């Protein structure tokens, strides 16, 4: 073969052209997710709410907890150009309050899910992988949390906490922590199931044969493969947390000093007869946000499922 500069350059550029980027599982999943219209709609909804929360003081026409309608006697006014969603019994502009509530909803949603999932992953991974007595003990503890009547215990604990801790962001944080602490059990069981399934795989056997320590196997091999289900569960957990916070605030056990949609529904419960707009709009936003996370969660589940072939 003639070895001159031209050929050499030619073969090098050819090599570069044929060296293609590998398609990772994440790429495949992302592509599948993009094709799912419902999931995209859900993502759009979430994005919209995040936008509302981030720019709330710019979007809401009135300051938080301001009562523009009170002095001029415009309480319980139906939706109009001045008050997009009407006013409530005190004189708050419902639209502004709803916008300010977005931040609380996202805060509690993400926060509770973070706490609950951290606990669930820890328990699920350790329990599933180590097995034996550790598994037994952890599963007993999990069962206790599974059997406890959730709402009951939550209400009692919240009554304790919100009486003791000062209100404001502190109070809302407490609500978030409480929800997180009591919600980890079902997901822990699911994750443990997945870990048990992955444990039987051949590459785990290979790792063990190569002498990898148990800790290494858990974090470097089992965990990435259970990650799929963890992502889906987290997203769905956020949806559940938002619903629970709304229910708890509705019953009056939330943080009175924060603005949350559930709380607006609580105040609206008395006004149902005269002012339907007081309750309909905050509730609508709760539904939308929860729907958004559910759609994205389902979309992620379909996209990340390793058993589906392209």
């Amino acid at each position, binding site marked *: 073969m003639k070895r001159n500069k031209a050929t050499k350059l030619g073969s090098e550029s050819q090599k570069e052209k044929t060296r293609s980027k590998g398609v990772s599982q994440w790429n495949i999943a992302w592509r599948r997710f993009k094709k799912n219209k419902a999931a995209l709609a859900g993502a759009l909804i979430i994005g919209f709410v995040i936008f509302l929360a981030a720019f709330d003081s710019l979007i809401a026409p009135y300051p938080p907890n301001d009562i523009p309608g009170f002095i001029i006697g415009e309480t319980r006014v139906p939706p109009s150009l001045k008050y997009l969603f009407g006013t409530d019994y005190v004189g708050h502009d419902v639209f502004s309050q709803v916008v300010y509530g977005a931040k609380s909803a996202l805060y509690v949603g993400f926060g509770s899910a973070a706490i609950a999932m951290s606990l669930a992953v820890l328990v699920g991974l350790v329990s599933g992988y180590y097995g034996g007595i550790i598994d037994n003990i952890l599963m007993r503890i999990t069962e206790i949390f599974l059997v406890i009547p959730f709402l009951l215990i939550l209400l009692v604990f919240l009554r304790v906490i919100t009486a003791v801790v000062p209100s404001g962001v502190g109070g809302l944080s407490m609500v978030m922590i409480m929800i997180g602490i009591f919600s980890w059990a079902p997901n822990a069981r699911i994750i443990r199931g997945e870990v048990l399934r992955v444990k039987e795989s051949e590459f785990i056997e290979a790792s063990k044969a190569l002498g990898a320590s148990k800790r290494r196997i858990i974090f470097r091999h089992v965990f990435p493969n259970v990650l799929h289900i963890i992502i889906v569960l987290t997203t769905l957990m956020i949806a559940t947390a938002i619903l629970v916070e709304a229910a708890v605030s509705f019953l009056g056990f939330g943080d009175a000093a924060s603005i949350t949609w559930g709380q607006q529904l609580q105040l609206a419960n008395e006004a149902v007869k005269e002012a339907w707009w007081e309750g309909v709009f905050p509730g609508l936003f709760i*539904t939308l946000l929860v729907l958004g996370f559910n759609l994205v969660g389902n979309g992620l589940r379909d996209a990340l499922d390793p058993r589906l072939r392209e």
Partner: protein
Amino acid sequence: MIRYVVRRLLYLIPLFVGILIIVFVASRIAGDPVRLMTVQNPQIGEDSKQNLREYYGLDKPLYYQFFLFMAQLFQGNLGNSYAIRGGIAVTELIGDYAWLTFELQLAALFLSLLIAIPIGIISAKKQYSKLDISVTTTSLLGTCIPVFYMGIVAIIIFAYFLGWFPASGAHSLLAERYPFGSDILDGLWHLALPTAVLTFASLAPTVLLVRSSMLEVLRQDYILAARASGLSERNVLYKHALRNALIPVVTYVGLYFGGMLAGAPVTETVFNWPGVGRLFVEATTKLDFPVIMGITVFIAIMTLIANLVTDITYGYIDPRIRLE
């Protein structure tokens, strides 16, 4: 089989006591009920309050109070309420309200199963059809709408705009308002809207569960084998597929039954339904310890029984579980 049942039963007892301890300790950390009771009356001096505390046994150490509670519990005595209906016995109080809660929850459970299972099956059989898509969309939406929001909207539409149903309560206050003068019809008339809302709220996840479980089962090899051996489609669907598909549904329903009481507070508050759930909210707000503990005992027992029954049924249906 018996050993399995006994094992589960023995296991539930420490669980029960555990729940009681947790609620007991938590409620007492919340504060002093005597202070709450007397907050509106500044004339009550500190020594009177202290007398009250001694009367209720609130000054004793916590573990002593708990043992006292457990001892009384075994005698079937749940104590007297601090702040509700003038110190009525808790057992009597719960007895008054319990049936109403059951009425609502059982009606909703029954109706939702009745509707959800057939719809789930048909939806699974005709996957991707227009029916299937509308069913799944509606059900998905149903899981996202908070129950109390559904209740509020239902009240606005059906009780205020249309005036077809009463907005709250379980009975009309005046006998003149009874529809057709009938007491039973009045009860049903008030039951209608809360039941409808609760049914729809339970329908949604159940339909999705039945459908996905059915889809999973229909993909199995033994279904193909059944079809290949010439069985009618109806036979295949109802006799072979359904039995297997219902296993997770049974588990779900069993646990739901246990959790139904726990979820009652919300629905009952929206409709002002005089049940145990609403009572619990009131008691927790007022720190009425005997009522709080009484309802906890009640609900804990229900939940644990539901779990036991679910485990037994599950063990009966799926022999693999029994051998664990």
